[in-house]
């Protein structure tokens, strides 16, 4: 169907050209026809006027010659004879014209007459040559003249018939001329009219079609302009940041107001370059094949924003470039942080008894030491004994201080700021925090930290500490659920791998079942009984790790589960911060 209509359309396009050619040729043909008709008429007129003239002239001369002969025969004086001579010569001069001239050749049947005329020429020549003798001679002239007259009589009859034939021929021509002049030049005029009107119709339809085309083109152009304007409006008004990036030059070509607010209004600001570099490094292929982004971007003010978005190729300013659409989900992250805080407080609440128990111990020792010190004050070697007791008090006070410090640090609201910090001390602190609980449960915590002490990573130190603590608590809880006689051990490892640090928390608690593994990092997925935990720990861990541009994976090992964190090493050395 489409093929047919395409062919028709192609054929239809050829029509105007063909019609034009036909019209033009009709026009030319009409003009030529008109010209030829005029020429024919002129020719006719000319032939009508000239043919027969020579025949008439010859006939006239014959009559005059015959008359001169007859008169001379009556009275042959010198004058009459001279006249005869003249007439004979003139008649003789007219005969060749009948068959020799253009006008004569047009006479009908002149070809048949030519030999006859030529014979008479010879006769006349003879007579003309005999004239001087006749004039001067003494012989009687009348018989000779009479004989000449009768000799020329057939010539007279021939000339008469020629004249008659040419008159009839002329009548024919007159008829033709009349009919020609009467005949209206209908055919040429009709053709002219037809061709002219066809041409005009053609031009009009063409003009109309061209006007319609023009209108359509104009409308399309207006629609495009309108759409562009709408698009621009949408882009400008969109709450998400939209920017056009030139990947070759790592520069930003266009930002919408949301993007300007997110990063910086000026396109030349170095923040943009950093954002582009991070994005292009961290881009991943999503489920639908598109390019997605999940990055943590540290603004130059120190704030870290969590950005989520996508990347797609786009044609901008005639060049292929990249369109980046980003959403700032820092608020979600702040909510997450608050959740973390809430979870921490909840945990803290859980651990309140343990903490109280812990604090009680040094306090009890202090009390006993003070009481003993009082007793020893009365004795003689009181000084040494009291000093020893006071030392004991100091040690216990330090111990209590450490416990309180841990709690304080744990209860601190996460700042949300990124800074470079040393990894190893953080892991050691996390381990220290749960040390008492592990001891109370009889679980061994093994530390294998194969990283230099000053190895730094970029992120929030407190958050990472919390994540590790969470993992360690999860491991402890896993042991609680499966009461087993095997020695309970949890490993906390850290080692370098390429440019990244691997932090592993491995337990021997039997591992994670398959259906739980599928939803492990999703929020509110928990294996703990209701009321014991919200199930947010691992999802929060994932978002924290992601914010640090790292990865977290869980897998089942020999006898238990292993959670691995993959964190990028910071390029700048750690910033020292007061604890």
């Amino acid at each position: 169907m489409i093929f047919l209509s395409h062919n028709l359309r192609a054929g239809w396009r050829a029509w105007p050209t063909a019609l034009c050619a036909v019209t033009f040729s009709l026009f030319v043909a009409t003009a030529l026809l008109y010209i030829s008709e005029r020429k024919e008429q002129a020719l006719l007129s000319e032939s009508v006027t000239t043919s027969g003239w020579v025949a008439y002239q010859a006939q006239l001369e014959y009559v005059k010659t015959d008359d001169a002969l007859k008169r001379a025969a009556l009275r042959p004086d010198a004058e009459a004879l001279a006249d005869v001579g003249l007439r004979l010569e003139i008649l003789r001069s007219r005969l060749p014209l009948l068959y020799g001239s253009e006008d004569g050749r047009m006479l009908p049947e002149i070809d048949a007459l030519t030999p006859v005329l030529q014979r008479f020429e010879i006769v006349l020549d003879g007579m003309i040559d005999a004239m001087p003798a006749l004039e001067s001679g003494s012989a009687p002239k009348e018989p000779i003249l009479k004989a000449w007259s009768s000799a020329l009589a057939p010539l007279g009859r021939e000339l008469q018939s020629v004249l008659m034939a040419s008159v009839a021929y002329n009548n024919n021509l007159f008829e033709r001329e009349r009919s020609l002049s009467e005949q209206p030049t209908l055919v040429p005029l009709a053709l002219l009219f037809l061709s002219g009107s066809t041409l005009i119709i053609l031009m009009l339809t063409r003009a109309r079609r061209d006007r319609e085309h023009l209108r359509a083109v104009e409308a399309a152009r207006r629609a495009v302009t309108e759409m562009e304007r709408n698009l621009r409006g949408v882009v400008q008004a969109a709450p998400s940041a939209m920017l056009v990036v030139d990947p070759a030059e790592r520069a930003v070509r266009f930002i919408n107001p949301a993007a300007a607010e997110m990063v910086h209004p000026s396109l030349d600001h170095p923040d943009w370059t950093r954002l582009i570099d991070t994005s292009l490094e961290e881009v991943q292929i999503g489920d639908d094949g598109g390019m997605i982004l999940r990055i943590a971007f540290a603004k130059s003010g120190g704030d870290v924003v969590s950005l989520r978005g996508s990347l797609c190729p786009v044609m901008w300013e005639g060049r292929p470039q990249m369109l980046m659409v980003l959403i700032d989900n820092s608020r979600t992250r702040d909510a997450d942080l608050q959740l973390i805080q809430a979870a921490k407080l909840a945990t803290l609440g859980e651990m309140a008894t343990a903490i109280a128990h812990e604090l009680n111990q040094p306090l009890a020792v202090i009390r006993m030491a003070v009481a003993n010190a009082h007793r020893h004050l009365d004795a003689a070697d009181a000084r040494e004994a009291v000093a020893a007791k006071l030392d004991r008090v100091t040690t216990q006070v330090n111990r209590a201080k450490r416990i309180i410090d841990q709690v304080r640090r744990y209860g601190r609201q996460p700042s949300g700021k990124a800074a470079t910090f040393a990894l190893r001390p953080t892991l050691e602190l996390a381990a220290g925090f749960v040390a008492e609980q592990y001891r109370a449960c009889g679980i061994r915590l093994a530390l294998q930290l194969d990283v230099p002490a000053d190895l730094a990573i970029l992120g929030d130190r407190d958050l990472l500490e919390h994540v590790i603590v969470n993992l360690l608590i999860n491991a402890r809880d896993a042991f609680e659920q499966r009461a087993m006689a095997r020695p309970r051990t949890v490993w906390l490892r850290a080692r370098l791998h390429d440019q990244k640090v691997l932090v592993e928390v491995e337990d021997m608690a039997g591992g994670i079942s398959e259906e739980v593994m599928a939803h492990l990092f999703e929020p509110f997925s928990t294996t703990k009984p209701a009321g014991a935990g919200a199930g947010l720990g691992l999802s929060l861990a994932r978002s924290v790790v992601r914010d640090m541009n790292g990865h977290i994976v869980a897998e089942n090992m020999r006898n238990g589960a292993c959670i691995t964190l993959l964190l990028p090493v910071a390029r700048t050395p750690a910033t020292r911060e007061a604890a």
Partner: protein
Amino acid sequence: MSRTAVITSLLVLWLTLPAAAQAVLVRWAGADGKVVEQRELTLRDLDALPQAAIETSTPWTEGVRRFTGPPLSAIATLGGQSPKEVRVAALNDYVMTLPAEDWTQNGALFSTRINGTIIRVKDKGPFWIMYPLDRDARFKQAMYKSRMVWQVKSLDFLVP
């Protein structure tokens, strides 16, 4: 004496008869018909005038012929006049009017001889007004052909 007379008259007749057949009557007249001058030019008179020649073929002759005679302009200005046109009459009473440009610009020739011999009446003599057909193709048009009058009898010049 009578014998001499007869011979003389015969001689004169012999001499003048052809000569009489070969004479052209030339008249100069004004528009009102008043004759200003009149001459009868014999072949001898014509030969005395400055001569010209045209070598050409014509529709009525075979091949290229040499026409010689005084140019028509020589005759036209004989009386000291500058005529505007001339009415040429032929022996068979054919009449044609020639405009002045034909003898002032077109080089019309009042030919008295063809290839050196005088022209007999039966050969369209004694005098034939000729144009240089071969040199200028426009003289082959019917208009000019009708002006090439043969068997010229008289020339009537119209003087302004």
